[in-house]
């Protein structure tokens, strides 16, 4: 998942493919839920993250007389775990999904619109609202969001007398100039999975690309830029196989002067001493235009619980507390993500000047699913096919996007 640290996908064993259906009949048997407990399904398997989450949950739960219990599974298993729980009527009271997965769940009508659950969603940035919405209704609320920016090696840029590039032209020139010896000017992820697609979007969208009409003639420029960077030798040919974690590794090892990456890399970047870094906005095709990066992050949703509406209300109260300005700001700082309340985001930018670029970017960032909704996985796959075949020299940008549009249309 691009919005979280670029972990290696730990796949489900192939055998479970065949057996997965079995779970329909056999899982479940959950114990009778305690009325004073709110359960949360999330991906906080990391101990530090789990503990930090619990601290915020407890802080909000105690005054309400509620205990909060987390069930954490690896990020790429949240959706399938949630589906299995749903089939046995044992879904948690709060479901924390990746923003790009929300439409699939909202479409099932198994989620309660947040307004009905008593969740206050006023004062959120437009991009954060769209991240949690499906078909005009808000089903999920994001405590904080992230996006992508250009992270650069301050020393290398200073030595070369180069300012952080703001346009594509500058980016290409700077990357070329910064390429020397073992160091490439630029690094990005073009892997054929969610990581690569997430990184392609700021270029695709900023050029005027449209995920609902992939072959509208504007996205080619983004493909051409990526292709040029590799053809110039300014970026490694291996980008087609690098996930976001690999890109960060290259940067930290001093093998890339600039990279596209997200704020979830900040703990790693801050912990190392080899490279001084700073964050700039993503370069745009023409000077003066605003960058359009994707917005990422997790959203919390309230599954319908017709047997016990009190549980929905409890979940709603908890969400309201988690999303107060103060709690959002503190949470955002603990995970290096930008709060979603406009006022909290401003405070965040002021208190974390190093990450201010991210705070600014999320205001123009766009949700991946706002336009195509549940079609996103197919569209994302089609886009991945496009940049992979262009970067490996199989097709021209025009052909690639034409084919991607056909694939996306066929898969819907």
């Amino acid at each position, binding site marked *: 998942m691009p919005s979280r640290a670029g972990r290696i996908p730990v796949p489900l064993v192939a055998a479970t493919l*065949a057996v997965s259906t079995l779970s329909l009949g056999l899982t479940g048997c959950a114990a009778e839920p305690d009325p004073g407990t709110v359960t949360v399904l999330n991906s906080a398997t990391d101990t530090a993250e789990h503990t930090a989450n619990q601290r915020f949950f407890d802080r909000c739960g105690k005054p309400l007389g509620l205990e909060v219990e987390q069930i954490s599974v690896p990020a790429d298993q949240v959706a399938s775990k949630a*589906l299995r729980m749903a089939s046995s009527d044992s879904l948690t009271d709060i479901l924390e999904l990746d923003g790009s997965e929300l439409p699939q769940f909202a479409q099932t009508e198994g989620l309660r619109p947040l307004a009905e659950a008593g969740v206050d969603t006023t004062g959120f940035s437009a991009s954060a609202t769209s991240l949690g919405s499906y078909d005009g209704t808000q089903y999920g609320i994001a405590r904080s969001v992230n996006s992508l920016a250009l992270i650069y090696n301050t020393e290398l840029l200073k030595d070369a007398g180069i300012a952080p590039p703001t346009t594509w032209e500058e980016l290409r020139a700077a990357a070329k100039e910064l390429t020397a010896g073992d160091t490439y000017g630029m690094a990005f992820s073009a892997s054929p999975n969610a990581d690569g697609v997430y990184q392609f979007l700021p270029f695709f969208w900023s050029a005027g690309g449209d995920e609902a009409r992939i072959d509208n003639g504007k996205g080619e420029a983004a493909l051409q830029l990526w292709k040029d960077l590799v053809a110039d030798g300014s970026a490694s040919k291996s980008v087609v196989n690098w996930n976001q974690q690999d890109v960060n590794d290259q940067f930290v090892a001093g093998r890339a002067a600039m990279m596209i990456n997200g704020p979830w890399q900040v703990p790693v970047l801050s912990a190392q001493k080899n490279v001084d870094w700073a964050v700039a906005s993503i370069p745009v095709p023409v000077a003066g235009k605003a960058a359009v990066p994707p917005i990422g992050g997790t959203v919390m949703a309230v599954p319908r619980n017709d047997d016990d509406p009190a549980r929905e209300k409890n979940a709603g109260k908890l969400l309201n507390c988690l999303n107060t300005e103060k709690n959002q700001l503190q949470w955002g700082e603990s995970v290096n993500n930008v709060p979603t309340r406009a006022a909290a985001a401003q405070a965040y930018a002021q208190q974390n000047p190093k990450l201010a670029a991210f705070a600014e970017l999320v205001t123009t960032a766009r949700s991946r699913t706002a336009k195509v909704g549940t079609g996103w996985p197919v569209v994302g796959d089609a886009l991945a096919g496009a940049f992979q075949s262009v970067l490996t020299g199989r097709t021209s940008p025009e052909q690639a996007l034409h084919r991607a549009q056909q694939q996306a249309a066929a898969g819907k």
Partner: protein
Amino acid sequence: MTTITSIAPAEGTAGAGSTSVRTSRHRGLLRWLFVVPALAYMALFFGYPLVRNIVMSFQHYTPKTYFTGEAPFNGLDNWRAVFANELFTDALWHTALFTVGSLLGQFTIGLALAVFFSRRFRLSGVIRAVLLLPWLVPMVVSAVVWRRILDQEHGMLNTALHAVGLVPADGVPWLSSPGVALFSAILVNIWIGIPFNMVILYGGLQEIPRDLYEAAALDGSGAWRTFRSITLPMLRPVITVVLVLGFMSTVKILDLILALTSGGPADSTQTLGTVTYQLSFLQLDFGQGAVVGNVLILISAVFAVLYLRANRADFGKGK
């Protein structure tokens, strides 16, 4: 790769002579009673999911199904969609290449090592233990390590090959070129599969009576002739086991490829396994995912039947 599919237990030995019709009927009943738990287990844990998977491939099975329980039947829609998908056809090819290539490599190298180690010499135990390592390392971990080794610019393999002058300075694009990536995946899988082949074949070699070799030596047969006329035929049952088990675990490979290349670059390493994963767990179209799953099961079943037949023939000959 590391999962070893269990094989159905062999049928009970043929009944002893009957004293009277009644006792023999009793006996027959009793015999069935002992088989019932195994049958029930098989039906529940293998039969049920299998049937569900087949039924699912004719249903519009989406996340909604998990909430509402409704999965409307849509006839052959899923099958048509999957077979019309170019990716599926490509994946079939890749799976075939990957499986045949992996098996060939694993088996020949495994056999060579097994023969080599079946002669006793110093340190043989230690070296054998080292050779088992790939088996002990979790698949995803090996894949991550291999990703580093195969890196075009800083990977050990290119550095080493360049040092001995086998490749130019810019190296082989092991994982970043669509023309090479599948080959690299096969290489890694061969490395992972060698220990399994070696251990089983080594065990088989130990079973061959020494005096056969002595007799052959007395008859003046050379090493190659001995290998062809004694070792290979005597190993035949073991070879079938190794190849069939290897086949069944290779054909459905998923984790290695996901961690190594994610199916890329440009879909050049997509296999039936990764396509099922993609359809079911990323696009959440479980109906279409089930179609590919069924194709995989069908392919495996064909080989399982062949295997059982081959084995029965062996039993029949009293081997």
